[in-house]
């Protein structure tokens, strides 16, 4: 990899800082995890503290797709279409084990994880996850956004000619090389 590829301007830093504190979420809520999502959004856990305040019910106004609940094969095309409609850069959180892996469903109708259809940045386990876990996942995503390592951020950089090898992307949650 060339050294220039890793050259990050102060402007990019500032932009990513702004992005991570102004996430506009699109809640794709399909199942019981939705109750826990409401709890996260409500005043007690208050996701607004992290800047992810407004659920936008139009994918064109959102940059964070939160997949909350079981995804069936039949919903696949709709989910993919919603992801495609979102403005770049965009991020995806899989909320709960069903969205992450299919959960305990192992049958003809359930998709084994939403990442079969859209790229997922943060997986939050739990059935359903505690609100604290969701906030933890959100903070992980914010770190990832700051480093410019969201799936879509990397894709945009490569489209623009900055070729970053995939191996150079640190796993989520590893903080050793930040700064």
């Amino acid at each position, binding site marked *: 990899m060339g050294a220039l590829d890793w050259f990050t301007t102060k402007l990019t830093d500032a932009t990513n800082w702004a992005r991570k504190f102004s996430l506009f979420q699109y809640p794709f809520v399909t199942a019981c995890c939705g109750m826990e999502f409401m709890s996260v959004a409500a005043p007690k856990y208050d996701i607004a503290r992290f800047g992810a305040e407004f659920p936008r019910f139009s994918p064109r106004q959102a940059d964070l797709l939160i997949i909350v609940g079981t995804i069936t094969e*039949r919903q696949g*095309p709709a989910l993919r279409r919603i992801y495609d409609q979102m403005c770049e850069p965009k991020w995806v959180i899989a909320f709960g084990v069903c969205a992450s892996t299919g959960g305990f469903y192992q*049958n*003809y*109708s359930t*998709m084994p994880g939403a990442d*079969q259809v859209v790229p997922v940045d943060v997986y939050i386990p739990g059935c359903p996850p505690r609100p604290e876990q969701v906030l933890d996942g959100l903070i992980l995503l914010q770190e990832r956004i700051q480093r410019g390592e969201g*799936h879509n951020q990397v894709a945009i950089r490569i489209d623009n000619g900055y070729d970053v090898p995939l191996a150079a992307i640190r796993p989520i949650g590893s903080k050793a090389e930040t700064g």
Partner: protein
Amino acid sequence: MAQIVLDRLAARFTGGEILAAGTAHGDEWARIRRDAWVPVATFLRDDPATKMEMFIDLTCVDRFGAGGPGAAAPDAPRFDVVVHLYSVSLKHRVRLYGGAPEEDPTIDTLIPVWEGANWFEREAYDLYGVRFKGHPDLRRILMYPEFVGHPLRKDYPKEKRQPLVRRNAGKLE
């Protein structure tokens, strides 16, 4: 509980339309010959002693080699269409079985008797492949039109998925 229902059926249908009948866990059931499916249902709805105004449920059972209650095991039809009925005014219920053999899995539709049977029959068709003769709109209701086969049949591999869309694993997006 509702022995009166079985008694009425036995009194009205004497030509062998009622193949078997009995009581299980306090509820009555009757196995109906396939060609008498709609006449029996109509009679149960209209007879003043049974008054089955309420269609509760319609589903299907895939016996796949085993006989059902009251069925002679070797030649029992593979599919049982099961209908649950309830009389709101008389507060009794009954369960009807209609057999549909594997080589010809068809049975008459109950929509002329109870309108509400429409989507239930679509579900049974979707998941078990039983065809309801006379149904005005027999399409899949839960699975997508591209799905091949009927997933709740015992010979459908339960984990066989038929994806509509997958992402391109080699492509960044």
